């Protein structure tokens, strides 16, 4: 009995409610005429799209730098990689890999600067990160207008200035990860899953390395870390660079699954769903595991795919957007106001 109690306490009531809610929707769906198989398939596809973006939050949480509300910065680096790859006319897997390789130097540079700023503002990282992310989106909006891209796939056919708001990757690397495995399957995004598994495993290994342990030490107890001679600022910058690079990779994986590169204001609120997902998975402001990422992404995306179809079938109204706003922000709010796990990302 006590065991169950502690288990419930560890899981936290929002997580239990959300899990039960999702389960009940899966149970109900066959009775109101929803194809359970395709519903599950949708959830998995969305899982594949978003998992790496959620994973990208891990290093910064581990090092105690807080929830990465500045994720748009990394996303912009990924977008740069994607449009440059298309501009160079790269196609197929080369195009996808090219986009990632091109985006990495940008992400490292952005992350390095961003990390140094965050070191100057310890204790207030999250708010400042949010606004650094927002400002970077606005700057890049100007860039999309003025950068001299020529590719016919990306500029307006006539009239208009700068790049299009959405660029199709259909003829470049749409669903390339699945195609590489020769398993184009609408139900199971095996390519994305394998790619995510590789990255997640890499991170798991990393946190068992010397630097990884140091990063954890900085996050859990910075005084202890300092006493053992760890250079806290350097470790924190490393974690921010890692998060930013992963966000860049994450958005490219997202795009190749989604089929479009979305520029301009699209990256604005990208951090919030990812953060909500990792929190639903059981992470707190300064504690996280890979399991949190997997569970959280699945639960969050499950709710996003299931609620609209279920609600739609019951009351004939599409409330998906509203429910998404309430669930994701409610979850972040819950994490921010929890008494334990306090300490504003110190």
């Amino acid at each position: 009995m006590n065991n169950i109690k502690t288990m419930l306490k560890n899981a936290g009531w929002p997580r239990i409610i959300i899990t039960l809610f999702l389960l009940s929707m899966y149970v109900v769906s066959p009775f109101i005429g929803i194809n359970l198989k395709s519903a599950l398939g949708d959830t998995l596809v969305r899982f594949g799209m978003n998992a790496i973006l959620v994973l990208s939050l891990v290093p910064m949480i581990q090092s105690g730098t807080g929830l990465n509300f500045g994720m748009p910065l990394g996303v912009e680096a990924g977008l740069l990689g994607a449009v440059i790859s298309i501009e160079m006319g790269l196609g197929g897997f080369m195009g996808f890999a090219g986009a990632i390789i091109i985006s990495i130097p940008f992400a490292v540079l952005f992350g390095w600067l961003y990390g140094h700023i965050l070191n100057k503002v310890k204790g207030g990282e999250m708010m400042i990160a949010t606004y650094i992310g927002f400002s970077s989106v606005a700057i890049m909006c100007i860039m999309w207008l003025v950068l001299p891209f020529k590719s016919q796939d990306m500029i307006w056919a006539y009239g208009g200035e700068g790049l299009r708001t959405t660029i199709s990757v259909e003829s470049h690397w749409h669903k390339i990860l699945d195609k590489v495995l020769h398993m184009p399957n609408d139900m199971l995004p095996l390519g994305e899953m394998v790619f995510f598994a590789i990255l997640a495993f890499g991170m798991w290994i990393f946190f068992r390395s010397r630097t990884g342990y140091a990063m954890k030490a900085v996050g859990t107890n910075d005084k202890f870390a300092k006493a053992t001679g760890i250079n806290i600022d350097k470790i924190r910058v490393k974690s921010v660079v890692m998060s930013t690079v992963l966000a860049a990779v994450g958005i490219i994986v997202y795009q190749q699954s989604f089929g479009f590169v979305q520029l301009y204001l699209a990256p604005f609120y990208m951090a919030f769903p990812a953060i909500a997902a990792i929190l639903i998975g059981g992470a707190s402001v300064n504690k996280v595991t890979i399991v949190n990422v997997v569970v959280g992404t699945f639960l969050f995306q499950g709710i996003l795919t299931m609620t609209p179809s279920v609600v739609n079938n019951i009351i004939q109204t599409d409330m998906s957007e509203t429910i998404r706003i309430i669930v994701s922000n409610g979850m972040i709010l819950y994490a921010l106001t929890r008494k334990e796990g306090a300490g504003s990302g110190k």
Partner: protein
Amino acid sequence: MENKIKKFLINNVVPIFMVIIILLSIPISGLSIEYLIQEIILRLSRNLFLVLSLLIPIIAGMGLNFGIVLGAMAGQIALIFITDWNVVGLQGFFLAVIITLPIAALMGYVGGIVLNRAKGREMITSMILGFFINGVYQLLVLYGMGKVIPIKNEAILLSRGHGIRNAIDLKNIRRALDDGITFNIGQYSIPVLTILAIVLLCLFIVWFRKTKLGQDMRAIGQDIEVSKSSGIAVDRTRILAIVISTILAGIGQLIFLQNIGTMNTYNSHEQIGMFAIAALLIGGATVSKASIPNALSGVVLFHTMFVLAPRAGKELIGSAQIGEYFRVFISYGIIALVLILHQWRREKEKEAERKRILEMNSNQAGGN
């Protein structure tokens, strides 16, 4: 003397930077000074009340209250009702104020409780709270109104029979307050009632700072622990600060919308927090210190830039779109910059404090 100038420059880096940008872009934009002055009068009367609603939580040390969007939503709910009931003119406006008060007070109370659970990170929490309540607002207005809450006026309902339309024409109370009494100075017309409301609010803030409650808030802003031990009800006082701010923001949103004349049911409130905060910070306020002159000069500077940027962008690079994005960048960039400077300064102060204590301890140890 030189030191003083240096300090002045450092403390006012943001307003000075803005003044330079504006002075550079006035000739580029090709807009006449008369036009600019008329615009500034318009935008002052439209926005200043909202910006002033931010001041009280800053006194209480709770930082920039992104939660003023809660008040804005309360105001908009009130506007939906008076449009439905077809109450017109100044009467309509004051009825809207009366309806706004309890809703905003309730929202402020909820906000205050939430922020008390997140001491030390009020700003990010108030921002997320704004997003969250926005979801609840959508649920209420888009799905509840016309179904659970009776709305008779079909002109504001969606064609499906429930839910409020995206845009509501506020013709009943358009410029009701602004045009109530007008006064012309030369070619400029002054909306007397709106200005009066703003002046009253300024007087209220000045008076409020001197009351017991205001003093308590200032003490809490200085140091929570010390205030607690000296018997101030910290949590209650902080809730009150947010309640007052939310109510004022609700009225501010009413003033804002009666001036504009149409309401975007699902967007009008979203940007309010960000724009009001950017304006206040551009006026030289910081996270822990803000005054009425900050708000006044901030609104003037921010909105002059707002008018100038697209025009200057068009004349300079042939693209109004770039100017548009530039002003978005400035708004966000300024907030980021001020937050960074503030946090950085605080870190420096803390370090100095730590050093002082260490030295004191070592001196004592040496003495023994």
